């Protein structure tokens, strides 16, 4: 049992850990490596407070395919034929209500509705409507739970992204991946527990910010680690020019010997812990390139993800990489694909954006499924808010744009114990307000944590006098979409 726990590294609680303390300093350092928060008292002596799920989890890992900039639901998932019928007509005031608008359209004199330029068809057992822009996604709808009734509180990119990722619009709080790392510890001690992959399409882009994968007030071991294309996939991973692995090993041995002299003098356990961190860094130097190496992937896999997956830094390559990282026990893999902010020129841009992500997103789900990993991996696809049913800027027969819209948007989830083949929630016939089963961002976050075996009200960290949660002070698990 002991060995299995260590191997799986599925973290063990503080009490259990303390019973192994008698093994001496080595085990202290090792323990802190596996589950650094064992020594971080959260303020209450609850053995379940961190490091062990609160109840049996459905999922062990998450892959979040974040579509940065907010894809238009009207052109992808939320079929609104009525918008086409009413094209050019003013949005009825009863629908628009008194909601605030962004400064970009607040001064528009009129708000003409615009329907999707692209057609939709029904797919799968649930008869989900999917647009023609997503031919690959349409083939896997029976694996997806499409939530058309997400809503948020922010209407601008920065606060909305920050809200989805950290539960607060202001920043400075831990990201979802950090919370999971904190709550569950890691499965693979040679890879960072929370990794981040970036890519960009040709559409109008909004930046991403490393604060989105910040550990906030949690230990920085829970910080998201960005993996990038190129020779140094993790910052400073590569040994300097002219140094081979034997020489690095040799250098680390000298270092350990010298640090040990220091330990003998000072007796500070942090010195031993430092040595262990160097050993982990050394192992990462081998483990990361191994996991990044796509050369051993079969032709069938390359075909599945599409030829782009061999081009480092593309969304497709990142999807394939995400599968590999996840397969190797990385708790949370966060992708960001930029370019979804179609204020104008929407038909052209969204077509390109959809082409960038459609095949690889579907391939990831298929690939996980054929490996038997989909059950324990939660895949999430979606942006930070939705887009308006009326046009931003000039409406012409060929061209239009859509502004930010927090009141409804669509995401999908797959695997990880979420009901497959389901469409959840509805918007009104103009796709402007939610008509049925609204899902707030905090509800979504609570549901994700729940699938990982964590109670969002119990996963807390006491900081400056307050117990903080990912879900701040609200949120309820969306039971309807859990299998």
């Amino acid at each position, binding site marked *: 049992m002991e060995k299995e726990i260590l191997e*799986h590294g*599925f973290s063990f*609680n503080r*009490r259990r850990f303390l019973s192994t303390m008698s093994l001496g300093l080595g085990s202290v350092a090792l323990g802190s490596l596996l589950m650094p928060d064992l020594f971080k008292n959260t*303020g209450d002596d*609850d*053995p379940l407070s961190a490091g*062990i799920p609160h109840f*049996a989890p459905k999922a*062990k890992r998450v892959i979040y395919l974040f579509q940065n900039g907010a894809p238009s639901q009207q052109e992808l998932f939320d079929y609104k034929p009525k918008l086409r019928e009413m094209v050019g007509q003013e949005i009825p005031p009863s629908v628009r209500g008194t909601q605030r608008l*962004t*400064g970009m359209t*607040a001064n528009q004199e009129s708000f003409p509705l615009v329907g999707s330029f692209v057609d939709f068809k029904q797919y799968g057992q649930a008869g989900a409507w999917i647009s023609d822009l997503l031919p690959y996604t349409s083939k896997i709808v029976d694996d997806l739970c499409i939530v058309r009734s997400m809503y948020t509180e922010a*209407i*601008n990119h*920065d606060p909305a992204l920050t809200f989805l990722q950290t539960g607060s619009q*202001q*920043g*400075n709080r831990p990201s979802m991946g950090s919370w999971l790392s904190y709550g569950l510890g890691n499965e693979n001690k040679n890879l*960072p527990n929370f990794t981040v992959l*970036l890519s*960009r399409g040709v559409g109008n882009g909004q*930046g*991403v*910010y*490393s604060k989105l994968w*910040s550990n906030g007030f949690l230990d*920085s071991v829970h910080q998201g680690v960005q993996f*990038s294309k*190129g020779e140094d996939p*993790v*910052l*400073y*991973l*590569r040994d*300097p*020019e*002219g*140094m081979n692995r034997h*020489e690095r090993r040799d*250098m680390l041995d*000298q*270092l350990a010997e*010298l*640090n040990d*002299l*220091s330990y003998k003098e*000072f*007796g*500070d356990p*942090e*010195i031993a812990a*430092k040595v262990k961190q160097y050993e*982990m*860094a050394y192992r*990462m*130097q081998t483990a990361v390139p191994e996991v990044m190496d796509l050369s051993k992937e079969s032709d069938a896999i390359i075909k599945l993800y599409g030829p782009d997956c061999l081009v480092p830094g593309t969304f497709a390559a990142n999807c394939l990489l995400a599968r590999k990282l996840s397969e190797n026990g990385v708790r949370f893999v966060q992708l960001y694909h930029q370019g979804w902010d179609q204020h104008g020129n929407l038909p052209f841009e969204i077509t390109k954006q959809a082409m960038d992500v459609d095949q690889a997103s579907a391939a990831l789900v298929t690939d996980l499924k054929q490996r038997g990993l989909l059950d324990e991996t939660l895949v999430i696809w979606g942006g930070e808010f939705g887009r308006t049913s009326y046009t931003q800027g000039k409406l012409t027969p060929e061209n239009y744009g859509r502004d930010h819209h927090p009141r409804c948007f669509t995401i999908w989830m797959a695997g990880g114990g979420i009901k497959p083949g389901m469409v959840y929630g509805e918007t009104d016939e103009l796709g402007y307000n939610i008509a049925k089963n609204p899902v707030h961002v905090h509800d979504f976050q609570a549901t994700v944590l729940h699938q990982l075996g964590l109670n969002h*009200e119990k996963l807390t960290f006491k900081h*400056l*006098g307050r117990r903080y949660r990912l879900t701040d002070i609200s949120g309820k698990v969306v039971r309807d979409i859990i299998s």
Partner: protein
Amino acid sequence: MDFMGMWQKRLQIVVLLGFLVSCWFAACRSGSATFTNGKKLPETVSYTYDIRPILSDKCFACHGPDENKREAGLRLDVAEEAFKALKENPSAHALVAGKPELSQLYLRISTTDSTKLMPPVESNLRLSSEEIALLEKWIKQGANYEKHWAFVPPKRPTLPKVADESRAINEIDFFVQAKLEEKGLKPNQEADRERLLKRVSLDLTGLPPTVELMDRFLADNSPKAYEKVVDELLNNPAYGERMAVHWLDVARYADSHGYQDDGYRTQWPWRDWVIHAFNKNYSYKKFVTWQLAGDLLPNAAKEQLLATGFNRNHKITEEGGVIQEEYRLSYVTDRSDLFGKALLGVTMECAHCHDHKYDPFSQKEYYQLFAFFNNVQEVGIESVIGGPETYAKKPLMEISDEDIQSVLRFVNKPDTNRLIVSVMGDLDSTRKTHVLLRGVYDAPGEEVQPGTPKAILPFSPRYPKNRLGLSQWLFDPQNPLTARVFVNQIWQEFFGRGLVKTSGDFGMQGDLPTHPALLDWLSVDFMENQWNIKRLVKQLVMSATYRQSAVVSEQQLKKDPENIYLSRSSRYHIDAEHIKDLVMASSGLLVRTIGGPSVKPYQPPGLWEGATSGRGLLSIYVQDHGSRLYRRGMYTLIKRTVPPPVMSIFDASNRDLCEVKRLKTNTPLQALVMMNDPAVLEASRVLAARLLQEKSTDKEKIVQAFRRIVCRKPTDKETEILDAFYQKQLQTMTETAAQKALSVGEYPLPEKLNSRQVAALMRVISTLYNLEETITRT
């Protein structure tokens, strides 16, 4: 084992643990009041130290200051309320002095009926048996309340009597010694001279001592030797830079506007002023007053106006389409929260949306404080990302070349370009302030006038109702928090942990001071000596407590793993900025220019480019060259949305919001930085080349490198290991490998050196930079 199987096994462990815990509980209940953790109940239970932390943490959220969330009308944070008959059952009382069996509070926390149990099961909070016993004893002893310690102005306590006075150098040591004797601990001996010098040099200047200073200090046998060094370091301009690093975290200083496109801003002249102010040793009162209200001083000078940049360092949006008022109010919120956290040490921000749940601050009081900062001539969004005219936002000041030659000499302006800085400036009329319901910008409630929380100190009518009046209130001798909070932050900077551990929260939920009398003594002493910062700093570093060695015995580790009682010096990694300083200084690369525009040293490619929308000056990282590569760490440009990676890896603040304390962590990414960061490798190369140009033996070179980097002479054993390593590298290093190794960094390599030798010695030096001791304050 499959996943679910493993889960089941783990459940068994949990059940077993649960069983053990309940046995433990049962044992505690039936036995005497000694707990398995060895703790005994105190003779006299103290409200402040024993009871209030429990009530605050577990009860006040529903039975505390927040009127809207108060359950059953019961309030436990105020004595007269807690003793009243219960609203729901007037024949019963929450507290009956001396009679726990009649006190509903005790009955409800000790009941076995889960429907009656407090805190309620669904709150996920629970009381330990020790906490229950404490509450019981407190009620038996009369359930006496005391005012929260931090809201009572400090008085100078008398020095405690100690059994062993021999180690005491100044007053600090009496207070520490008294606590150690109480806890049965003995203080360490003074650290050896080399380690002490490294510590005090890093702490006072952020730089390692030079070899020259090391030699001088080792040779000086006078009793004043240490004090001479302290004075020398305090007068080194690097002192101002080191002190500024903490203040820049407090003031959330950065070189970008912080939202979305995250454009460039020129706020660095304000940073130059901070360094100047510390070096000039402005009193804390002057330092803060100018920053809060320099613009409101009679005949405000340009320097005083520049100081107010402090309150404009917050993030400012340039994202088109935002709602003006929402963002303008967010800036006012940021200032108010900073004022609470950094200067008063209270979490005022909790009262932004509702009455504070733990501390006696109403939401109305929050907006009264807010009103002081709500009159600035500013807008939510002034301009979207663009050219130099967007580098500061109105109100702003221009710094002319004439200013640089006269009143603002300390601003290191390198060129003749227009230079603008965001500063404070109020409207001529008064903007109305309303309570914002739920903290939402478009839900104004009752109108309020400027004011301060009554529980701290009511706002005297003799003060003007503006930021200048607010500073006067802050430095009113009756203000219980200002001195304590700053003294505690400085203590934290020099001992690794504040006397109040939660340096940003002196309220009900914050930690209690470990040495309350010492904190009060230092605070009163600080006020009585005109808020003299250098004097305070000198007091700390002169104490025997500060000078102790960092050796930790097993007994100390067991009795006091966190070193709360200061029986030794704490060891921790130095600040991210000072790690770069140490590398630059020890290799001889450091360029000692003070201030000026921030610099862009080596950074892995693609970080900005991969994360940007492509707009603005900071969308592409254009690395600097030459001397700008070798500046102190604090001058590295901070782009908020993508802060310098090495800084983040070593726990620096991302400067999003005010921070008063950094984490100290230990991660594998830190190891990767020290092993592979080109800045460290280049420093290793440069130092290797430098040493090889000297006429000395291999061993002498190694000793010299060791002294420069680790700041002490190596032991024979250490020299032996390093020399053997060097000889091995010399043997195995090929010319090709050497050439590759030496290619790192832009600093020119001297000609006529044997490249294999340089590369081999470079590896030894790189190893030294990776020693745990090197970047540790020991």
